[in-house]
Protein backbone atom coordinates (compact mmCIF):
# COMPACT_ATOMS: atom_id res chain seq x y z
CA UNK A 1 0.00 0.00 0.00
CA UNK A 2 2.80 2.37 0.94
CA UNK A 3 4.38 1.82 -2.49
CA UNK A 4 1.05 2.58 -4.12
CA UNK A 5 1.11 5.97 -2.41
CA UNK A 6 4.49 6.59 -3.95
CA UNK A 7 3.01 6.30 -7.45
CA UNK A 8 1.56 9.79 -7.23
CA UNK A 9 5.09 11.07 -6.58
CA UNK A 10 6.32 9.15 -9.58
CA UNK A 11 3.48 10.62 -11.65
CA UNK A 12 4.50 14.08 -10.45
CA UNK A 13 8.10 13.21 -11.36
CA UNK A 14 7.01 12.17 -14.83
CA UNK A 15 5.11 15.44 -15.31
CA UNK A 16 8.10 17.40 -13.98
CA UNK A 17 10.29 15.65 -16.54
CA UNK A 18 7.79 16.43 -19.26
CA UNK A 19 7.59 20.11 -18.30
CA UNK A 20 10.43 21.49 -16.18
CA UNK A 21 13.26 19.41 -17.60
CA UNK A 22 12.40 20.66 -21.06
CA UNK A 23 13.36 24.15 -19.89
CA UNK A 24 17.03 23.24 -19.84
CA UNK A 25 17.29 21.96 -23.38
CA UNK A 26 14.23 23.77 -24.80
CA UNK A 27 16.21 26.57 -26.38
CA UNK A 28 18.84 24.16 -27.74
CA UNK A 29 16.25 21.84 -29.28
CA UNK A 30 14.02 24.72 -30.41
CA UNK A 31 16.95 26.34 -32.20
CA UNK A 32 17.67 22.91 -33.77
CA UNK A 33 21.21 22.91 -32.43
CA UNK A 34 20.73 19.68 -30.50
CA UNK A 35 18.44 16.84 -31.51
CA UNK A 36 15.62 16.02 -29.15
CA UNK A 37 16.81 12.45 -28.55
CA UNK A 38 20.33 13.53 -27.66
CA UNK A 39 18.97 16.25 -25.36
CA UNK A 40 16.58 13.83 -23.68
CA UNK A 41 19.31 11.30 -22.88
CA UNK A 42 21.79 13.87 -21.54
CA UNK A 43 19.12 15.66 -19.51
CA UNK A 44 17.94 12.36 -17.99
CA UNK A 45 21.39 11.24 -16.89
CA UNK A 46 22.40 14.56 -15.35
CA UNK A 47 19.01 15.21 -13.82
CA UNK A 48 19.31 11.92 -11.90
CA UNK A 49 22.89 12.71 -10.83
CA UNK A 50 21.89 16.18 -9.56
CA UNK A 51 18.89 14.78 -7.71
CA UNK A 52 20.87 12.06 -5.93
CA UNK A 53 24.10 13.91 -5.21
CA UNK A 54 22.84 17.39 -4.34
CA UNK A 55 19.08 17.10 -3.95
CA UNK A 56 18.62 17.45 -0.22
CA UNK A 57 19.19 21.23 0.11
CA UNK A 58 15.88 22.54 -1.15
CA UNK A 59 13.72 19.76 0.31
CA UNK A 60 14.16 21.32 3.77
CA UNK A 61 12.55 24.56 2.55
CA UNK A 62 9.45 22.69 1.36
CA UNK A 63 9.24 20.85 4.69
CA UNK A 64 9.27 24.22 6.43
CA UNK A 65 6.41 25.48 4.24
CA UNK A 66 4.21 22.64 5.43
CA UNK A 67 5.35 19.32 6.78
CA UNK A 68 3.03 16.81 5.13
CA UNK A 69 3.28 14.19 7.85
CA UNK A 70 1.01 11.39 6.59
CA UNK A 71 1.58 9.23 3.58
CA UNK A 72 -2.04 9.73 2.45
CA UNK A 73 -1.47 13.47 2.51
CA UNK A 74 1.81 13.16 0.62
CA UNK A 75 0.06 11.02 -1.99
CA UNK A 76 -2.72 13.57 -2.48
CA UNK A 77 -0.38 16.57 -2.56
CA UNK A 78 1.84 14.95 -5.18
CA UNK A 79 -1.16 13.74 -7.18
CA UNK A 80 -2.77 17.20 -7.30
CA UNK A 81 0.52 18.83 -8.29
CA UNK A 82 1.10 16.13 -10.89
CA UNK A 83 -2.36 16.57 -12.43
CA UNK A 84 -1.93 20.37 -12.54
CA UNK A 85 1.49 20.00 -14.11
CA UNK A 86 0.23 17.45 -16.63
CA UNK A 87 -2.68 19.67 -17.69
CA UNK A 88 -0.35 22.63 -18.19
CA UNK A 89 2.06 20.45 -20.17
CA UNK A 90 -0.80 19.21 -22.31
CA UNK A 91 -1.53 22.79 -23.34
CA UNK A 92 2.24 23.40 -23.73
CA UNK A 93 2.47 26.04 -20.98
CA UNK A 94 5.93 26.11 -19.41
CA UNK A 95 4.95 26.20 -15.74
CA UNK A 96 7.09 24.85 -12.92
CA UNK A 97 6.41 21.94 -10.66
CA UNK A 98 7.58 24.26 -7.88
CA UNK A 99 4.48 26.38 -8.39
CA UNK A 100 2.20 23.36 -8.44
CA UNK A 101 3.74 21.72 -5.35
CA UNK A 102 3.78 24.94 -3.32
CA UNK A 103 0.10 25.48 -4.20
CA UNK A 104 -0.64 21.87 -3.23
CA UNK A 105 1.15 22.13 0.14
CA UNK A 106 -0.77 25.31 0.96
CA UNK A 107 -3.97 23.43 -0.03
CA UNK A 108 -2.97 20.67 2.43
CA UNK A 109 -2.28 23.25 5.15
CA UNK A 110 -5.69 24.83 4.60
CA UNK A 111 -7.48 21.47 4.69
CA UNK A 112 -5.74 20.15 7.77
CA UNK A 113 -5.77 23.44 9.62
CA UNK A 114 -1.98 23.63 9.79
CA UNK A 115 -0.58 27.10 9.51
CA UNK A 116 1.45 28.07 6.46
CA UNK A 117 4.85 29.45 7.38
CA UNK A 118 4.45 32.91 5.90
CA UNK A 119 8.18 33.61 6.11
CA UNK A 120 9.05 30.55 4.04
CA UNK A 121 6.22 31.29 1.61
CA UNK A 122 7.41 34.84 1.14
CA UNK A 123 10.98 33.58 0.58
CA UNK A 124 9.75 31.20 -2.12
CA UNK A 125 7.60 33.85 -3.81
CA UNK A 126 10.47 36.35 -3.60
CA UNK A 127 12.73 33.79 -5.30
CA UNK A 128 10.09 33.39 -8.02
CA UNK A 129 10.34 37.11 -8.69
CA UNK A 130 14.11 37.35 -8.26
CA UNK A 131 14.81 34.25 -10.39
CA UNK A 132 13.62 35.63 -13.74
CA UNK A 133 15.06 39.09 -13.04
CA UNK A 134 18.51 37.65 -12.23
CA UNK A 135 18.13 35.27 -15.19
CA UNK A 136 17.34 38.16 -17.56
CA UNK A 137 20.31 40.13 -16.26
CA UNK A 138 22.70 37.19 -16.64
CA UNK A 139 21.31 36.47 -20.10
CA UNK A 140 21.80 40.03 -21.36
CA UNK A 141 25.35 40.26 -19.99
CA UNK A 142 26.35 36.89 -21.41
CA UNK A 143 24.71 37.70 -24.74
CA UNK A 144 26.57 40.97 -25.09
CA UNK A 145 29.80 39.19 -24.18
CA UNK A 146 29.35 36.39 -26.68
CA UNK A 147 28.39 38.78 -29.53
CA UNK A 148 31.44 40.93 -28.90
CA UNK A 149 33.66 37.86 -28.75
CA UNK A 150 32.26 36.54 -32.04
CA UNK A 151 32.80 39.84 -33.82
CA UNK A 152 36.27 40.30 -32.41
CA UNK A 153 37.79 36.89 -33.15
CA UNK A 154 36.35 36.50 -36.70
CA UNK A 155 35.85 32.81 -36.19
CA UNK A 156 34.40 30.70 -39.02
CA UNK A 157 30.62 30.38 -38.68
CA UNK A 158 30.69 26.58 -38.87
CA UNK A 159 33.42 26.33 -36.25
CA UNK A 160 31.63 28.86 -34.03
CA UNK A 161 28.38 26.93 -34.23
CA UNK A 162 30.16 23.68 -33.49
CA UNK A 163 31.60 25.27 -30.33
CA UNK A 164 28.14 26.56 -29.46
CA UNK A 165 26.68 23.10 -29.98
CA UNK A 166 29.29 21.53 -27.71
CA UNK A 167 28.72 24.34 -25.22
CA UNK A 168 24.97 23.74 -25.31
CA UNK A 169 25.48 20.08 -24.49
CA UNK A 170 27.91 20.81 -21.64
CA UNK A 171 25.85 23.67 -20.22
CA UNK A 172 22.65 21.67 -20.73
CA UNK A 173 24.16 18.83 -18.74
CA UNK A 174 25.13 21.32 -16.02
CA UNK A 175 21.63 22.84 -16.15
CA UNK A 176 20.03 19.42 -15.86
CA UNK A 177 22.25 18.64 -12.88
CA UNK A 178 21.30 21.94 -11.21
CA UNK A 179 17.60 21.47 -11.97
CA UNK A 180 17.74 17.93 -10.61
CA UNK A 181 19.38 19.21 -7.43
CA UNK A 182 16.95 22.09 -7.13
CA UNK A 183 13.66 20.49 -8.11
CA UNK A 184 13.80 16.88 -6.92
CA UNK A 185 12.45 18.10 -3.60
CA UNK A 186 9.23 19.02 -5.40
CA UNK A 187 8.74 15.42 -6.43
CA UNK A 188 10.00 13.40 -3.50
CA UNK A 189 10.31 15.99 -0.73
CA UNK A 190 6.83 15.25 0.63
CA UNK A 191 7.62 11.51 0.85
CA UNK A 192 10.97 11.84 2.62
CA UNK A 193 9.50 12.03 6.17
CA UNK A 194 7.19 9.06 5.48
CA UNK A 195 9.94 6.60 4.42
CA UNK A 196 12.82 5.18 6.35
CA UNK A 197 14.68 2.85 3.99
CA UNK A 198 17.87 0.90 4.71
CA UNK A 199 21.04 2.33 3.17
CA UNK A 200 21.72 1.00 -0.32
CA UNK A 201 25.37 0.22 -1.03
CA UNK A 202 26.09 0.39 -4.76
CA UNK A 203 29.81 -0.24 -4.34
CA UNK A 204 31.00 3.19 -5.39
CA UNK A 205 28.33 5.12 -3.46
CA UNK A 206 26.00 4.44 -0.54
CA UNK A 207 22.54 5.92 -0.87
CA UNK A 208 20.55 6.85 2.21
CA UNK A 209 16.75 6.67 2.38
CA UNK A 210 16.16 10.15 0.92
CA UNK A 211 18.69 9.59 -1.87
CA UNK A 212 16.99 6.32 -2.85
CA UNK A 213 13.70 8.15 -3.12
CA UNK A 214 15.39 10.90 -5.12
CA UNK A 215 16.89 8.29 -7.45
CA UNK A 216 13.49 6.74 -7.98
CA UNK A 217 12.04 10.22 -8.60
CA UNK A 218 14.94 10.88 -10.98
CA UNK A 219 13.99 7.82 -13.03
CA UNK A 220 10.39 9.01 -13.18
CA UNK A 221 11.61 12.42 -14.34
CA UNK A 222 13.83 10.81 -16.98
CA UNK A 223 10.77 8.94 -18.30
CA UNK A 224 8.88 12.23 -18.48
CA UNK A 225 11.71 13.88 -20.40
CA UNK A 226 11.98 11.08 -22.93
CA UNK A 227 8.27 10.49 -23.47
CA UNK A 228 6.54 13.87 -23.26
CA UNK A 229 8.80 16.93 -23.09
CA UNK A 230 8.93 17.68 -26.82
CA UNK A 231 5.89 20.01 -26.85
CA UNK A 232 7.13 22.38 -24.14
CA UNK A 233 10.63 22.39 -25.63
CA UNK A 234 9.11 23.62 -28.86
CA UNK A 235 7.14 26.40 -27.09
CA UNK A 236 10.22 27.63 -25.25
CA UNK A 237 12.62 27.24 -28.12
CA UNK A 238 10.71 28.99 -30.83
CA UNK A 239 7.29 30.28 -29.79
CA UNK A 240 8.26 33.14 -27.46
CA UNK A 241 11.19 34.34 -29.53
CA UNK A 242 13.14 32.81 -32.40
CA UNK A 243 16.47 32.08 -30.77
CA UNK A 244 19.80 32.12 -32.56
CA UNK A 245 22.42 29.52 -31.67
CA UNK A 246 24.37 31.85 -29.36
CA UNK A 247 21.15 33.08 -27.72
CA UNK A 248 20.17 29.47 -27.04
CA UNK A 249 23.51 28.89 -25.29
CA UNK A 250 23.17 32.08 -23.29
CA UNK A 251 19.65 31.17 -22.16
CA UNK A 252 20.69 27.72 -20.93
CA UNK A 253 23.83 29.07 -19.27
CA UNK A 254 22.03 31.91 -17.49
CA UNK A 255 19.27 29.57 -16.32
CA UNK A 256 21.74 26.99 -15.06
CA UNK A 257 23.63 29.66 -13.12
CA UNK A 258 20.47 30.92 -11.44
CA UNK A 259 19.37 27.39 -10.52
CA UNK A 260 22.85 26.58 -9.25
CA UNK A 261 22.93 29.73 -7.11
CA UNK A 262 19.61 28.85 -5.47
CA UNK A 263 20.54 25.22 -4.75
CA UNK A 264 24.20 25.35 -3.79
CA UNK A 265 24.65 25.29 -0.03
CA UNK A 266 28.43 25.57 -0.53
CA UNK A 267 28.06 28.81 -2.53
CA UNK A 268 25.77 30.24 0.13
CA UNK A 269 28.27 29.31 2.85
CA UNK A 270 31.05 30.94 0.83
CA UNK A 271 28.99 34.13 0.56
CA UNK A 272 28.35 34.14 4.30
CA UNK A 273 32.04 33.64 5.03
CA UNK A 274 32.86 36.85 3.15
CA UNK A 275 30.09 38.79 4.84
CA UNK A 276 27.27 38.45 2.27
CA UNK A 277 23.72 37.50 3.30
CA UNK A 278 22.94 33.76 2.88
CA UNK A 279 21.30 32.64 -0.36
CA UNK A 280 17.93 31.04 0.38
CA UNK A 281 17.85 27.35 -0.64
CA UNK A 282 14.57 27.61 -2.48
CA UNK A 283 13.17 25.46 -5.29
CA UNK A 284 13.18 28.17 -7.95
CA UNK A 285 10.69 28.07 -10.78
CA UNK A 286 12.84 27.06 -13.73
CA UNK A 287 10.13 28.09 -16.20
CA UNK A 288 10.11 31.62 -14.82
CA UNK A 289 13.90 31.81 -14.93
CA UNK A 290 14.10 30.62 -18.52
CA UNK A 291 11.28 32.86 -19.70
CA UNK A 292 13.09 35.71 -17.89
CA UNK A 293 16.28 34.86 -19.80
CA UNK A 294 14.48 34.77 -23.15
CA UNK A 295 12.72 38.09 -22.44
CA UNK A 296 16.05 39.60 -21.39
CA UNK A 297 17.57 38.77 -24.77
CA UNK A 298 14.40 39.87 -26.57
CA UNK A 299 14.45 43.24 -24.82
CA UNK A 300 18.14 43.68 -25.58
CA UNK A 301 17.40 43.04 -29.25
CA UNK A 302 14.64 45.66 -29.23
CA UNK A 303 11.56 43.69 -28.09
CA UNK A 304 10.11 43.69 -31.61
CA UNK A 305 10.41 39.92 -31.98
CA UNK A 306 8.87 38.98 -28.66
CA UNK A 307 5.47 37.35 -29.03
CA UNK A 308 3.65 39.09 -26.20
CA UNK A 309 0.47 37.05 -26.66
CA UNK A 310 2.33 33.82 -25.90
CA UNK A 311 4.05 35.55 -23.00
CA UNK A 312 0.69 36.72 -21.55
CA UNK A 313 -0.69 33.19 -21.73
CA UNK A 314 2.38 31.84 -19.93
CA UNK A 315 2.10 34.49 -17.19
CA UNK A 316 -1.57 33.59 -16.72
CA UNK A 317 -0.62 29.91 -16.44
CA UNK A 318 1.90 30.83 -13.71
CA UNK A 319 -0.88 32.40 -11.63
CA UNK A 320 -3.44 29.69 -12.37
CA UNK A 321 -1.20 26.71 -11.61
CA UNK A 322 -0.55 27.22 -7.85
CA UNK A 323 -4.16 28.27 -7.28
CA UNK A 324 -5.53 25.31 -9.26
CA UNK A 325 -3.13 22.93 -7.56
CA UNK A 326 -4.13 24.22 -4.10
CA UNK A 327 -7.85 23.91 -4.83
CA UNK A 328 -7.42 20.46 -6.35
CA UNK A 329 -5.47 19.29 -3.29
CA UNK A 330 -8.16 20.62 -1.00
CA UNK A 331 -10.94 18.72 -2.81
CA UNK A 332 -8.90 15.53 -3.27
CA UNK A 333 -8.03 15.53 0.45
CA UNK A 334 -11.71 15.86 1.25
CA UNK A 335 -12.51 12.75 -0.82
CA UNK A 336 -9.48 10.81 0.46
CA UNK A 337 -10.44 11.44 4.05
CA UNK A 338 -14.21 11.18 3.91
CA UNK A 339 -14.79 8.74 1.06
CA UNK A 340 -11.82 6.35 1.36
CA UNK A 341 -11.12 6.90 5.05
CA UNK A 342 -7.41 7.50 4.49
CA UNK A 343 -5.60 9.63 7.04
CA UNK A 344 -4.12 12.68 5.41
CA UNK A 345 -2.43 14.18 8.47
CA UNK A 346 -1.36 13.09 11.94
CA UNK A 347 -2.94 15.41 14.44
CA UNK A 348 -3.49 12.93 17.25
CA UNK A 349 -1.01 10.78 19.12
CA UNK A 350 -2.98 7.63 18.18
CA UNK A 351 -2.50 8.31 14.50
CA UNK A 352 1.23 8.63 14.90
CA UNK A 353 1.50 5.35 16.78
CA UNK A 354 -0.43 3.46 14.11
CA UNK A 355 1.61 5.01 11.39
CA UNK A 356 4.95 4.23 13.05
CA UNK A 357 3.92 0.60 13.51
CA UNK A 358 2.90 0.38 9.90
CA UNK A 359 6.17 1.86 8.66
CA UNK A 360 8.34 -0.27 10.92
CA UNK A 361 6.59 -3.45 9.82
CA UNK A 362 7.12 -2.81 6.17
CA UNK A 363 10.57 -1.22 6.26
CA UNK A 364 12.62 -4.28 5.28
CA UNK A 365 10.43 -5.43 2.40
CA UNK A 366 10.06 -1.90 1.03
CA UNK A 367 13.83 -1.41 1.16
CA UNK A 368 14.32 -4.66 -0.74
CA UNK A 369 11.67 -3.80 -3.35
CA UNK A 370 13.06 -0.34 -3.92
CA UNK A 371 16.62 -1.70 -4.05
CA UNK A 372 15.79 -4.18 -6.82
CA UNK A 373 13.59 -1.64 -8.59
CA UNK A 374 16.43 0.90 -8.67
CA UNK A 375 19.00 -1.66 -9.80
CA UNK A 376 16.64 -2.98 -12.50
CA UNK A 377 15.89 0.49 -13.86
CA UNK A 378 19.59 1.43 -13.76
CA UNK A 379 20.60 -1.65 -15.77
CA UNK A 380 17.71 -1.20 -18.22
CA UNK A 381 18.55 2.51 -18.66
CA UNK A 382 22.25 1.82 -19.23
CA UNK A 383 21.53 -0.89 -21.80
CA UNK A 384 18.97 1.35 -23.55
CA UNK A 385 21.35 4.30 -23.77
CA UNK A 386 24.24 2.15 -25.03
CA UNK A 387 21.98 0.57 -27.66
CA UNK A 388 20.85 4.00 -28.79
CA UNK A 389 24.42 5.22 -29.30
CA UNK A 390 25.42 2.04 -31.11
CA UNK A 391 22.43 2.30 -33.45
CA UNK A 392 23.14 5.96 -34.16
CA UNK A 393 26.75 5.12 -34.97
CA UNK A 394 25.69 2.32 -37.27
CA UNK A 395 23.28 4.65 -39.08
CA UNK A 396 26.05 7.18 -39.70
CA UNK A 397 28.44 4.50 -40.94
CA UNK A 398 25.81 3.09 -43.32
CA UNK A 399 25.24 6.54 -44.73
CA UNK A 400 28.95 7.09 -45.22
CA UNK A 401 29.27 3.74 -47.02
CA UNK A 402 26.33 4.51 -49.32
CA UNK A 403 27.90 7.86 -50.14
CA UNK A 404 31.22 6.23 -50.98
CA UNK A 405 29.41 3.68 -53.16
CA UNK A 406 27.60 6.50 -54.98
CA UNK A 407 30.86 8.21 -55.95
CA UNK A 408 32.45 4.89 -56.94
CA UNK A 409 29.54 4.29 -59.33
CA UNK A 410 29.80 7.83 -60.68
CA UNK A 411 33.42 7.17 -61.59
Amino acid at each position, binding site marked *: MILFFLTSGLFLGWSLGANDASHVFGSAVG*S*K*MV*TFRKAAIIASIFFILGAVLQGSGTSHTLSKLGSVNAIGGSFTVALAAGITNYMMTKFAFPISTTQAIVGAIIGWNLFTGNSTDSKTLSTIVAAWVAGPVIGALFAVLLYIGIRKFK*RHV*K*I*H*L*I*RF*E*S*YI*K*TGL*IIVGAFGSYSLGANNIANVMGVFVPAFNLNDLDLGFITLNSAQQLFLLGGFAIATGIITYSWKVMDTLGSNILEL*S*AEAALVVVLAQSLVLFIFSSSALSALGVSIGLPPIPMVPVSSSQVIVGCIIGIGLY*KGARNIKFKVLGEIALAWIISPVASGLLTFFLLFFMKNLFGIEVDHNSAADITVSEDYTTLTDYSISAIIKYLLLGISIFGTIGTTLYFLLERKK*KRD*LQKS*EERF*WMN*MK
Partner: protein
Amino acid sequence: MPVFTRTTKKLIIKLDDFFDNVDLSLLVFREALKAYLNKDMPSFTRHLQKADSLEKNADRLQREIENDMITHSILPQHRGDVIQLIEQIDEIIDGVKSTLYEFDIEIPEIPQKLSNSFINLAEVSASAGEELLPAARAYFKTPFTVREKLLKVYYFESETDKVAYDLKKLIFHEMPELDLAHKAHLRYIIHHIEKISDLAQKAADLLSGMAIKIVI
Protein backbone atom coordinates in the same frame (compact mmCIF):
# COMPACT_ATOMS: atom_id res chain seq x y z
CA MET B 1 29.81 15.87 -30.63
CA PRO B 2 31.38 18.16 -33.21
CA VAL B 3 34.34 19.05 -31.03
CA PHE B 4 35.42 15.43 -30.89
CA THR B 5 35.28 14.86 -34.65
CA ARG B 6 37.02 16.40 -37.60
CA THR B 7 33.75 16.98 -39.43
CA THR B 8 33.79 20.73 -38.85
CA LYS B 9 37.34 21.13 -40.09
CA LYS B 10 36.71 18.94 -43.12
CA LEU B 11 33.55 20.83 -43.97
CA ILE B 12 35.32 24.20 -43.81
CA ILE B 13 38.01 22.82 -46.15
CA LYS B 14 35.35 21.49 -48.54
CA LEU B 15 33.60 24.87 -48.60
CA ASP B 16 36.89 26.62 -49.37
CA ASP B 17 37.65 24.05 -52.07
CA PHE B 18 34.25 24.62 -53.60
CA PHE B 19 34.75 28.38 -53.77
CA ASP B 20 38.26 27.87 -55.17
CA ASN B 21 36.83 25.68 -57.92
CA VAL B 22 34.31 28.32 -58.92
CA ASP B 23 36.97 31.02 -58.77
CA LEU B 24 39.29 29.01 -61.01
CA SER B 25 36.51 28.18 -63.44
CA LEU B 26 35.87 31.90 -63.99
CA LEU B 27 39.55 32.41 -64.70
CA VAL B 28 39.48 29.49 -67.12
CA PHE B 29 36.34 30.93 -68.74
CA ARG B 30 38.14 34.18 -69.53
CA GLU B 31 41.24 32.46 -70.84
CA ALA B 32 39.22 30.00 -72.92
CA LEU B 33 37.28 32.79 -74.62
CA LYS B 34 40.47 34.72 -75.32
CA ALA B 35 42.01 31.58 -76.82
CA TYR B 36 38.89 31.02 -78.96
CA LEU B 37 38.84 34.58 -80.22
CA ASN B 38 42.57 34.33 -80.98
CA LYS B 39 41.80 31.13 -82.88
CA ASP B 40 44.11 29.18 -80.56
CA MET B 41 41.96 26.03 -80.56
CA PRO B 42 44.38 23.67 -78.69
CA SER B 43 44.51 26.15 -75.82
CA PHE B 44 40.71 26.54 -75.94
CA THR B 45 40.24 22.75 -75.77
CA ARG B 46 42.63 22.51 -72.83
CA HIS B 47 40.69 25.21 -70.97
CA LEU B 48 37.41 23.52 -71.82
CA GLN B 49 38.65 20.26 -70.32
CA LYS B 50 39.83 22.11 -67.25
CA ALA B 51 36.41 23.78 -66.84
CA ASP B 52 34.76 20.39 -67.23
CA SER B 53 36.88 18.83 -64.49
CA LEU B 54 36.36 21.83 -62.18
CA GLU B 55 32.61 21.59 -62.67
CA LYS B 56 32.61 17.88 -61.83
CA ASN B 57 34.70 18.52 -58.74
CA ALA B 58 32.38 21.34 -57.65
CA ASP B 59 29.37 19.05 -58.07
CA ARG B 60 30.99 16.41 -55.87
CA LEU B 61 31.91 18.99 -53.24
CA GLN B 62 28.42 20.47 -53.34
CA ARG B 63 26.89 17.08 -52.67
CA GLU B 64 29.35 16.29 -49.89
CA ILE B 65 28.79 19.65 -48.21
CA GLU B 66 25.01 19.18 -48.31
CA ASN B 67 25.31 15.64 -46.93
CA ASP B 68 27.68 16.65 -44.15
CA MET B 69 25.51 19.57 -43.12
CA ILE B 70 22.40 17.44 -42.93
CA THR B 71 23.81 14.30 -41.35
CA HIS B 72 25.90 16.13 -38.74
CA SER B 73 23.20 18.75 -38.15
CA ILE B 74 25.60 21.60 -38.91
CA LEU B 75 24.31 25.19 -38.98
CA PRO B 76 20.73 24.02 -38.41
CA GLN B 77 19.28 27.51 -38.55
CA HIS B 78 21.16 28.65 -41.64
CA ARG B 79 21.56 25.31 -43.38
CA GLY B 80 18.75 25.86 -45.87
CA ASP B 81 20.18 29.23 -46.89
CA VAL B 82 23.76 27.95 -47.12
CA ILE B 83 22.72 24.96 -49.25
CA GLN B 84 20.72 27.25 -51.52
CA LEU B 85 23.67 29.62 -51.82
CA ILE B 86 25.98 26.78 -52.79
CA GLU B 87 23.45 25.62 -55.38
CA GLN B 88 23.27 29.14 -56.82
CA ILE B 89 27.05 29.42 -56.96
CA ASP B 90 27.24 25.98 -58.54
CA GLU B 91 24.97 27.28 -61.29
CA ILE B 92 27.69 29.80 -62.15
CA ILE B 93 30.25 27.07 -62.75
CA ASP B 94 27.59 25.11 -64.68
CA GLY B 95 27.03 28.25 -66.76
CA VAL B 96 30.75 28.54 -67.46
CA LYS B 97 30.95 24.96 -68.64
CA SER B 98 27.80 25.10 -70.77
CA THR B 99 28.89 28.37 -72.43
CA LEU B 100 32.29 26.95 -73.32
CA TYR B 101 30.59 23.84 -74.71
CA GLU B 102 28.34 26.09 -76.83
CA PHE B 103 31.51 27.53 -78.36
CA ASP B 104 32.95 24.07 -78.85
CA ILE B 105 29.83 22.65 -80.49
CA GLU B 106 28.50 25.59 -82.49
CA ILE B 107 31.86 27.21 -83.31
CA PRO B 108 30.34 30.72 -83.64
CA GLU B 109 31.96 32.89 -86.21
CA ILE B 110 32.89 36.11 -84.45
CA PRO B 111 33.97 38.96 -86.73
CA GLN B 112 37.46 40.31 -85.96
CA LYS B 113 35.86 43.73 -85.38
CA LEU B 114 33.90 42.35 -82.41
CA SER B 115 36.74 40.41 -80.75
CA ASN B 116 37.63 43.07 -78.22
CA SER B 117 33.99 43.70 -77.34
CA PHE B 118 33.47 39.98 -76.73
CA ILE B 119 36.61 39.80 -74.56
CA ASN B 120 35.38 42.84 -72.65
CA LEU B 121 31.97 41.24 -72.18
CA ALA B 122 33.56 38.04 -70.87
CA GLU B 123 35.79 40.09 -68.54
CA VAL B 124 32.99 42.05 -66.87
CA SER B 125 30.64 39.07 -66.70
CA ALA B 126 33.31 36.87 -65.10
CA SER B 127 34.26 39.74 -62.75
CA ALA B 128 30.71 39.78 -61.38
CA GLY B 129 31.11 36.10 -60.51
CA GLU B 130 34.59 36.62 -59.10
CA GLU B 131 33.46 39.44 -56.83
CA LEU B 132 30.71 37.24 -55.45
CA LEU B 133 33.16 34.74 -54.00
CA PRO B 134 34.91 37.01 -51.43
CA ALA B 135 31.45 38.03 -50.23
CA ALA B 136 30.38 34.39 -49.96
CA ARG B 137 33.54 33.57 -48.02
CA ALA B 138 33.01 36.62 -45.80
CA TYR B 139 29.53 35.36 -44.89
CA PHE B 140 31.19 32.66 -42.82
CA LYS B 141 33.78 34.83 -41.08
CA THR B 142 32.79 38.49 -41.16
CA PRO B 143 29.11 38.61 -42.13
CA PHE B 144 28.89 42.36 -41.44
CA THR B 145 31.20 43.01 -44.43
CA VAL B 146 29.18 40.97 -46.93
CA ARG B 147 26.92 43.72 -48.19
CA GLU B 148 29.74 46.13 -49.01
CA LYS B 149 31.52 43.37 -50.92
CA LEU B 150 28.37 42.64 -52.89
CA LEU B 151 28.27 46.19 -54.27
CA LYS B 152 30.96 45.18 -56.78
CA VAL B 153 28.85 42.25 -57.99
CA TYR B 154 25.94 44.57 -58.73
CA TYR B 155 28.29 47.04 -60.43
CA PHE B 156 29.79 44.41 -62.76
CA GLU B 157 26.38 42.94 -63.50
CA SER B 158 25.08 46.29 -64.68
CA GLU B 159 28.30 46.84 -66.65
CA THR B 160 27.76 43.46 -68.33
CA ASP B 161 24.24 44.50 -69.29
CA LYS B 162 25.55 47.73 -70.82
CA VAL B 163 28.36 46.02 -72.75
CA ALA B 164 25.96 43.33 -73.99
CA TYR B 165 23.41 45.95 -75.04
CA ASP B 166 26.01 47.97 -76.96
CA LEU B 167 27.35 44.83 -78.58
CA LYS B 168 23.92 43.65 -79.70
CA LYS B 169 23.08 47.09 -81.02
CA LEU B 170 26.34 47.16 -82.95
CA ILE B 171 25.62 43.76 -84.49
CA PHE B 172 22.04 44.51 -85.48
CA HIS B 173 22.37 48.19 -86.48
CA GLU B 174 25.85 48.67 -87.82
CA MET B 175 26.81 45.41 -89.42
CA PRO B 176 24.61 44.95 -92.50
CA GLU B 177 27.20 42.60 -94.01
CA LEU B 178 26.07 39.86 -91.56
CA ASP B 179 22.97 37.87 -92.39
CA LEU B 180 20.15 37.55 -89.87
CA ALA B 181 20.99 33.97 -88.87
CA HIS B 182 24.55 35.00 -88.09
CA LYS B 183 23.30 37.97 -86.07
CA ALA B 184 20.87 35.77 -84.15
CA HIS B 185 23.63 33.29 -83.44
CA LEU B 186 25.91 36.03 -82.09
CA ARG B 187 23.08 37.38 -79.94
CA TYR B 188 22.58 33.88 -78.56
CA ILE B 189 26.27 33.59 -77.68
CA ILE B 190 26.22 37.05 -76.05
CA HIS B 191 23.24 35.97 -74.03
CA HIS B 192 25.21 32.94 -72.78
CA ILE B 193 28.21 35.01 -71.70
CA GLU B 194 25.92 37.55 -70.06
CA LYS B 195 24.21 34.76 -68.11
CA ILE B 196 27.28 34.33 -65.85
CA SER B 197 26.78 37.80 -64.33
CA ASP B 198 23.01 37.27 -64.04
CA LEU B 199 23.64 34.10 -62.06
CA ALA B 200 26.13 35.97 -59.88
CA GLN B 201 23.54 38.65 -59.21
CA LYS B 202 20.94 36.06 -58.28
CA ALA B 203 23.35 34.50 -55.77
CA ALA B 204 24.25 38.00 -54.50
CA ASP B 205 20.57 38.74 -53.79
CA LEU B 206 20.33 35.58 -51.73
CA LEU B 207 23.60 36.25 -49.94
CA SER B 208 22.56 39.79 -49.10
CA GLY B 209 19.43 38.53 -47.33
CA MET B 210 21.40 35.83 -45.54
CA ALA B 211 23.90 38.40 -44.25
CA ILE B 212 21.14 40.55 -42.78
CA LYS B 213 19.62 37.53 -41.05
CA ILE B 214 22.87 36.50 -39.45
CA VAL B 215 23.94 39.98 -38.35
CA ILE B 216 20.66 40.88 -36.59
